[in-house]
């Protein structure tokens, strides 16, 4: 057993960078703060690689399962006699995998940003926030207990808020950041309630205790039904609500497209590769509890994932903002991962979905980060997000073009690029788990290929467009990360995930199911073909098709009016129907009562002034009558 105590340094280094750059950044040259941030992350990345190497290979005896190791833990807050919030680091396959993913992507994004953010106001602020995010995200994956996860979960949310709202003078950015925060906050409420329920029933926050097949969660908390589901199921559904919020699952996804208001590297890091998969990570982290304790909750996960992936894929086909297309694509891909978890069982080959989900998470991080960074390079070059204003950029941006194409092929699932392998495992798992979902995923695979190549052709092919000033390839500091990630996208599929990251820690065999893989590849090729046909050259076909399916097109284009629904709920219901009446009630009823008491007193004071008429005889009359009344009362009536 290797000592992994040093893993706490992985999040702490970015934290130190954040504090240092945050407090002193405005005094240093911008580039210095960028370099400090990058250096910090590089250090963390190296540590993460060492950890991974140590965990998977050095400290591991071949053939045995991977165990989870609590490398470090301190008490942070005592709550009840059983419940204590602790902070620490937990090392197991998925956390190590996540460490690698996060540090890698984050490092790439840092490097990329040095070039991308050049000349922006608040350069140091950007890097400070990036470091803060990295710290939070790393803390999240290392969490030893669910409450620590929640803590970092919130921190991640706030970093995301800060980064989306980075261009705080832009009202749309501010609105987007608010929306992102509030929607995820709402989801976190579910998460919190779930935690409270789970911890109350199991008396622990600790992951190791929770997921243990003999632990209290699985053995004890199954009973006590409410509306047909056990308490455990309910709490897990609530917890999943938090995950769904963070991972932009339907219907809590609406913040994600808007979040593209943030700087593109941020989208790459947070809203593609890392933070949005936190939900997947969360479910994966509690997977044994889901799988063994509450299969009902797992069904919810599966269906939400499936619906989200289809839903997002349909919308992605019609969007024109390149980042939004990518955002919906992200949502769709995460749907895949959720679905995979949802259809998975526990242990051995049953846990194929679990493995596939994590596998896809890994590959997705690579190619989606690549896509975003590539999109960033495009935006950097043309200063616009709107693909209808782009075209034929391949000759101006050769490196970007090449890497982008690689990413597109990967996401479409064409072998032998990494996307193919991971997606194939998911489809197999779905096929074994739930046929309906399996067919949905086939459709999604086709749609994915279609919209990705629609995007690709619209940007790099299509019409010859005139730009204000000639687009030029991004500087080396930006293209190098693209190339590294492209490399990763191509080869990540060959990693032996079934040996490393499995539901029960034991390796199992996953032969490629060609009966499933071949149709899926064909479907993908079909999608690519349609996209090529429609968008490679400027044709009238897309408009015709749009016209033919005008309703579907319109609904899809308007994202199925989800934003409007939310707007209705927030503006109309909460703001106008709750908050405004509450404010009115407070002013006029509650406060009115208080003022009314004062008013009545004043009124009474004026009303009774007649007694003090200034006439002695009236005084005397009151006197005598008072005396007689007292006699009457106390002699005869008492």
């Amino acid at each position, binding site marked *: 057993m290797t000592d992994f105590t040093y893993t706490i340094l992985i999040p702490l280094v970015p934290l130190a960078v954040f504090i240092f750059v945050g407090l002193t950044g405005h005094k240093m040259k911008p580039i210095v703060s960028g370099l400090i941030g990058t250096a910090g992350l590089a250090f963390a990345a190296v540590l993460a690689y060492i950890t991974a190497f140590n965990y998977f290979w050095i400290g591991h005896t071949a053939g045995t399962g991977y165990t989870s190791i609590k490398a470090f833990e301190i008490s942070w807050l005592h709550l009840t006699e059983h419940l204590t919030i602790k902070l620490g680091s937990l090392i197991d396959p998925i956390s190590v995998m996540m460490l690698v993913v996060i540090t890698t992507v984050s490092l790439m994004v840092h490097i990329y940003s040095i070039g991308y953010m050049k000349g922006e106001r608040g350069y140091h602020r950007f890097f400070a926030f990036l470091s803060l995010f990295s710290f939070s995200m790393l803390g999240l994956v290392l969490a030893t207990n669910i409450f620590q996860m929640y803590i970092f979960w919130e921190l991640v949310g706030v970093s995301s808020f800060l980064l989306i709202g980075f261009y705080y003078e832009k009202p749309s950015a501010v609105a987007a950041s608010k929306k992102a925060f509030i929607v995820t906050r709402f989801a976190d409420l579910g998460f919190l309630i779930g935690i409270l329920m789970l911890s109350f029933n199991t008396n622990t926050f600790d992951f190791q205790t929770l997921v243990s097949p003999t632990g209290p969660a699985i053995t004890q908390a199954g009973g006590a039904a409410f509306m047909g589901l056990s308490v455990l199921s309910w709490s897990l559904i609530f917890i999943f609500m938090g995950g769904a919020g963070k991972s932009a699952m339907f219907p809590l996804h609406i913040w994600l497209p808007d979040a593209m208001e943030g700087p593109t590297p941020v989208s790459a890091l947070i809203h593609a590769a890392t933070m949005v998969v936190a939900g997947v990570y969360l479910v994966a982290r509690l997977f044994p509890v889901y799988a063994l304790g509450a299969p009902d909750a797992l069904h919810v996960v599966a269906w939400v994932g499936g619906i989200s992936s289809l839903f997002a894929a349909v919308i992605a086909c019609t969007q024109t903002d390149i980042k939004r297309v990518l955002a919906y694509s992200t949502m769709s891909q995460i749907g895949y991962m959720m679905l995979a978890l949802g259809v998975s069982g526990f242990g051995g080959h049953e846990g194929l979905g679990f493995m596939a989900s994590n596998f896809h998470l890994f590959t997705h991080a690579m190619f989606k980060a690549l896509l975003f960074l590539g999109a960033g390079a495009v935006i950097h070059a043309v200063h616009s997000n709107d693909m209808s204003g782009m075209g034929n950029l391949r000759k101006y941006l050769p490196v970007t073009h090449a890497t982008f194409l690689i990413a597109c092929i990967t996401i479409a699932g064409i072998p032998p690029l990494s996307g193919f392998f991971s997606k194939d495992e998911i489809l197999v798992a779905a096929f074994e788990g739930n046929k309906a979902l399996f067919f949905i995923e086939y459709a999604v695979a086709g749609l994915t290929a279609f919209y990705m190549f629609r995007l690709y052709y619209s940007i790099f092919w299509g019409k010859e467009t005139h730009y204000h000033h000639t687009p030029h390839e991004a500087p080396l500091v930006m293209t190098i990360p693209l190339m590294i990630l492209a490399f990763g996208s191509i080869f990540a599929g060959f990693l032996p995930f079934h040996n490393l990251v499995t539901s029960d820690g034991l390796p199992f065999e996953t032969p490629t199911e060609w009966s499933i893989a071949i149709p899926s590849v064909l479907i993908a090729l079909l999608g690519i073909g349609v996209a090529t046909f429609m968008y490679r050259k400027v044709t009238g076909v897309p408009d015709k098709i749009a016209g033919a399916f005008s309703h579907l097109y319109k609904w899809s284009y308007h994202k199925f009016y989800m934003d409007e629904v939310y707007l209705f709920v927030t503006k109309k219901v909460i703001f106008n129907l709750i908050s405004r009446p509450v404010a009115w009630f407070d002013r006029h009823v509650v406060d009115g009562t208080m003022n009314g008491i004062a008013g009545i007193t004043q009124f009474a004071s004026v009303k009774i002034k007649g007694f*003090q008429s*200034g*006439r*002695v*005889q009236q005084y005397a009359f009151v006197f*005598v009558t008072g005396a007689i009344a007292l006699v009457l009362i106390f002699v005869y009536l008492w």
Partner: protein
Amino acid sequence: MTGTIPLMYFLVISTLMFFIGIYGFLTRRNLITMLMSIELILNSVNINFVAFNKYLYPQHLSGHFFSLIVIAVAAAEAAVAIAIIINIYRNFKSIDVDKVDQMRY
């Protein structure tokens, strides 16, 4: 000499006189008549004291002396009151009680 007259007779007289005095005090507009009503009240009280003393507790002269003192006090009171009434007359040119209501509410 008083053997055949019950105590209650005296009390009835004094009570009636007392309330007549009060009535006068409440209804007479002239300050001096109000003062006279006061004298009626005090007089009725005196009758009470004296009658009780004579009929019930003749061993001491408490009621008798009480009456005596009340008479003296009434005199003092009347003196001061009349002085003030004269002052009122100078200030208000009237001794109508309802005119004396500068201060109210």
